[in-house]
């Protein structure tokens, strides 16, 4: 295999990783502030993808306009669903034991996934890419999908936006203060419940954005929620729970790993290489948990 080919795969892997980051950053943000791992995050991402699909049917396929409408409408809709879930369910379990939190979010996974099945059925769907992103750019003689390059640019923009929000705005200060001492923050006159609700909504917005981007990236079906939540979980464990920077690094590692490994393994003669590559996220997670249990960017628990 040529160096160019691996470079090509690297870029595809990075764009996959960026897509993963957009979703995983929401999961890690919610965990960081609310201390709950929302396993239903993947289901919300899937709902976002299917909503984008339904919306695309109402408009001219492949138009720039419809792509923008999807990007503008779907993530806020998922954030609103997040608002309802947080207000009615999640805020009751922040101080509960982990088992209860796990049961609630897992129950939500089952409910939401079945809802998707009811509404959209089991067939795989896809959304036509907008024309200007549908082609490919030539890269060392190989055709690199423009859409992948696009996602490769959106990812860092989201990372930068999140960083600025967390470290340069009052909203970010409030979120980071909530992580340490919510009661103290409340006594300072801050409505901490609202900070938590907003954080949860932002996390869901990111899941929705990931869903929209995914709907034009590859086929979507009923399995993508579960598939993505597992990858996201691996990402946040590798990067460190609650760390957005860690989620970025973790996503890129996973994205590049699952793109590279099948080729790499096949080239050294491993049978069924793509199946072996599926193990990669878990293997990485296991290695990190053994070597550095709090993740690459995380901090040991107090």
């Amino acid at each position, binding site marked *: 295999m040529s160096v160019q080919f691996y470079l090509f795969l690297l870029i595809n892997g990075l764009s996959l990783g960026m897509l993963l980051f957009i979703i995983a950053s929401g999961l890690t943000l919610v965990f960081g502030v609310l201390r709950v791992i929302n396993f239903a995050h993947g289901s919300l991402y899937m709902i976002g993808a299917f909503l984008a699909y339904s919306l695309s049917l109402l408009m001219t396929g492949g138009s720039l306009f419809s792509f923008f409408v999807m990007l503008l409408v779907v993530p806020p809709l998922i954030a609103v669903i997040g608002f309802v879930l947080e207000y009615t369910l999640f805020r009751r379990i922040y101080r509960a034991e982990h088992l209860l939190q796990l049961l609630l979010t897992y129950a939500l996974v089952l409910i939401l996934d079945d809802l998707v099945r009811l509404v959209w059925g089991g067939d795989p769907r896809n959304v036509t890419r907008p024309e200007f992103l549908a082609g490919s750019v030539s890269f060392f003689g190989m055709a690199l999908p423009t859409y992948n390059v696009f996602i490769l640019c959106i990812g860092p923009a989201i990372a930068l936006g999140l960083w600025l929000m967390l470290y340069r705005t009052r909203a970010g200060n409030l979120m980071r203060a909530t992580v340490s001492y919510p009661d103290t923050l409340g*006594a300072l006159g801050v409505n901490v419940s609202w900070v938590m609700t907003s954080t949860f909504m932002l996390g869901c917005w990111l899941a929705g954005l990931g869903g929209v981007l995914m709907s034009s990236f590859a086929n979507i079906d009923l399995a993508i929620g579960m598939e993505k939540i597992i990858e996201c979980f691996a990402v946040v464990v590798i990067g460190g729970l609650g760390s957005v920077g860690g989620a970025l690094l973790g996503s890129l590692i996973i994205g590049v790993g699952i793109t590279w490994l099948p080729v790499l393994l096949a080239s050294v003669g491993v049978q069924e290489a793509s199946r072996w590559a599926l193990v990669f996220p878990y293997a990485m997670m296991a290695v990190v948990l053994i070597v550095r249990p709090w993740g690459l960017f995380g901090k040991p628990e107090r």
Partner: protein
Amino acid sequence: MQLEVQAINTFYGLSHILFDVSLEVDKGQAVVLLGRNGAGKTTTLRSIMGLTPPKTGTVKFQGWDITGMVPFKVARLGLGFVPEDRRIFPDLTVKANLDVGRTRGNDKSVKWTYERIYMHFPRLKELANRRGGHLSGGEQQMLTIARTLMGDPTFLLLDEPSEGLAPIIVRDLGNFIEVMKKEGITILLSEQNVKFSLKHADRAYIVDSGHIKYQGSIEDLEKDDEVKKRYLAV
């Protein structure tokens, strides 16, 4: 009467901590709540703030019944709380810690701006970009008071501010308490440091095992060696 606490009983789970505690603070006064370790000072202040709401009794602030009100609403009425353990947000810079206390947003009527805080605490200005977790005890104490002031309270609950501070810092703290008094901020202070309290307070209460055992003017307490010996470690 700006603050009126009437016969409150407060519990941590099943353990009864405060027994019919009553106290009153007039506008503009500085009142000290003295007592040994574990006497119930922190619990009293937390009960007023709504952090550990009393089971019975009432807390009135400026005529409003605030018993059982959530802390952020109590704070927005003008009651500021400065925790004993300082609770500086470790991952936030000094400036961000102050920002978080600035609950009135861009309200033009605010008295405590960054400039004024930095004028009184030049050290905080030097440290503006340092993370809260990397401050000394004295710096943390100044920051925790400054952070609460950013919300422009008219009434300040100060929980054992002199605890664990070097004598020079305690003197600075005393000077700043005088500044706040001049600004017209009412203060309810909890302390074990009798000398410090006698210097800055107008009136005193003594709490022991969750009961109020003494109340009176500072002058009377100063003369009352019997009471001081009985309830305070002097």
